[in-house]
């Protein structure tokens, strides 16, 4: 696992792909059917298609993202995760992925439930609001934190539902899903490797990636 992660970050440097996307791609079984919700211009779709041989499709809200991705020949539809996930039949994908998007959905719980209905697995990555620097920022400055990855001001941001790793774990329990794997990335984009309690991950992880599946 550790060796694998090293290879992944090496690969990230070479390919220029985001580390969290490589972590996600590594969780996906080769050749599987994948729906990427909030696919942007299709970076992850391309990664999954070329390195994992997946039938990978995307939904993206922004017109610019969709048009750029479709122009590269990727199957992306312009749509809204908060609405359009309802159209997909049960079990139509092996994995439904929500990368760095859950905090921008209006109904995170509903979206997560839909993901676990449409796919047999769900993969969710998100910025961790419990990261120590966020906490420090709020404690010292008394203002809503803004970081390099999350540069928006509180009143002008697409991110309306921030959560911490512990909040997310609680939501997973609430929707009755199982955590198959979890990984946290520290402030340098490296995986937090040691198996530590959630509370520690919640402090050290700037981002988190969870692989979930339906219970039973």
């Amino acid at each position, binding site marked *: 696992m550790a060796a694998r992660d090293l290879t992944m970050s090496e690969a990230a440097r070479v390919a220029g792909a985001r580390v969290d996307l490589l972590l996600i791609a590594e969780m996906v079984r080769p050749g599987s059917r994948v729906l990427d919700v909030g696919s942007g211009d299709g970076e992850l779709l391309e990664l999954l298609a070329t390195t994992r041989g997946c039938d990978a499709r995307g939904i993206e809200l922004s*017109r610019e993202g*969709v048009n750029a991705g479709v122009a590269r*020949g990727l199957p992306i539809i312009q749509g809204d995760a908060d609405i359009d996930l309802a*159209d997909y*039949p049960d079990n139509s994908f092996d994995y439904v992925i929500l990368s760095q998007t859950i905090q921008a959905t209006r109904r995170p719980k509903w979206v997560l439930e839909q993901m676990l209905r449409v796919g047999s697995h769900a993969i969710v990555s998100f910025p961790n609001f419990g990261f120590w620097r966020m906490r420090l920022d709020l404690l010292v400055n008394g203002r809503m934190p803004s970081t390099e990855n999350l540069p928006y001001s509180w009143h002008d941001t697409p991110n309306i539902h921030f959560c911490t790793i512990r909040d997310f774990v609680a939501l997973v329990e609430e929707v009755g899903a199982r955590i198959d794997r979890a990984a946290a990335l520290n402030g340098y984009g490296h995986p937090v490797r040691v198996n530590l309690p959630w509370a520690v991950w919640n402090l050290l992880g700037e981002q988190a990636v969870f692989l979930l599946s339906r219970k039973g």
Partner: protein
Amino acid sequence: MSDNTVQRDLSAYEAARAEADHPHSAVVRFGAEAPLQLDAGGVLTPFQIAYQTYGTLNAARSNAILLCHALSGDQHAANVHPVTGKPGWWETLVGPGKPIDTERFFVIASNVLGGCLGTTGPSSTNPSTGQPYGLDLPVVTIRDMVRAQAMLIDHLGIEKLLAVVGGSMGGMQVLQWAASYPERVFAAMPIATAARHSAQNIAFHEVGRQAVMADPDWRGGRYLHEGTSPRRGLSVARMAAHITYMSDSSLHRKFGRRLQDRDGHTFSFDADFQVESYLRHQGESFVDRFDANSYLYVTRAMDYFDLAGEYEGVLANAFKGVKTRFCLVSFTSDWLFTTADSRAIVHALNASGAQVSFAEIESDKGHDSFLLDEPEFFAITRGFIDAAARAVGAL
């Protein structure tokens, strides 16, 4: 209008009518051995299809793209039109080095059944009478048009099309192709279209047809027999339709309230405004190249189109198990075939598990955007077609 103009108009009109039986296009004739089944019941036999091709079919026969034209279009998608002398209607998109690249793909465009540029339609000669069909031609549907196209594709020796591409009524044909012959279509690109014609669109068509039929020169559809032409009626129909192809903002940008070659209002019903003059010109030039009865038949075919109706009212059932990959495109200011219409198709395709892309293009040019210079639309078309070609090894 000078005598000269009248002379030229008449000859353009006559040139267009001559295309009905003897077009400036390749023609395939289907005799009694290959009758065309019609949705209205019965068969059409004999009949003919006029078509243009561009580029070269490769040895594997895997690089063929079929273009489907809209209501007032024809097979002259990417060549100078033999009647009007104008560039092909899709030369923005189709040609050497263009998004649908005729240097790499074998592109086919045929005139629709019921049309007037060489495929059997109401102005074609009825072999049993030696006179034009007029209203004796059975009413045809989008599915009939596509059945006829499939016979053309058979005739060309092509088992599977790399792509079927079309906008508006052409998009209806694309959807019908994917539903009727899913195994023959690798990629489908329905643009600015709908899976069924809306009540509002049927209403606009009815206005157009009534304008044609109210013209005394229509003569119950027998104007070709009687040597008249319902010019005024067809012209009004085209004027009304043309408004629906544009948007409020594009009309405003193009014309505003500007006056036509005059300083003030004439306090008459002359064409004071540029927009009036423009519409009159659109109507007049359409009359030369298009047959009035064809206008009735083709608008009717669109009205009858309701793909879900063939599948217990569930659109997703039309695409059950389909392996075809789709790319839908709509334009923000298109109020005739809206983004919601495209989205309804996308939802059905998602429900049936098909691979689908969908992009909405920002444009203020209305329904006609798909025929105009829209770089984002071109980039998407190129990306989708190239990806399909790579997937079948045709690039």
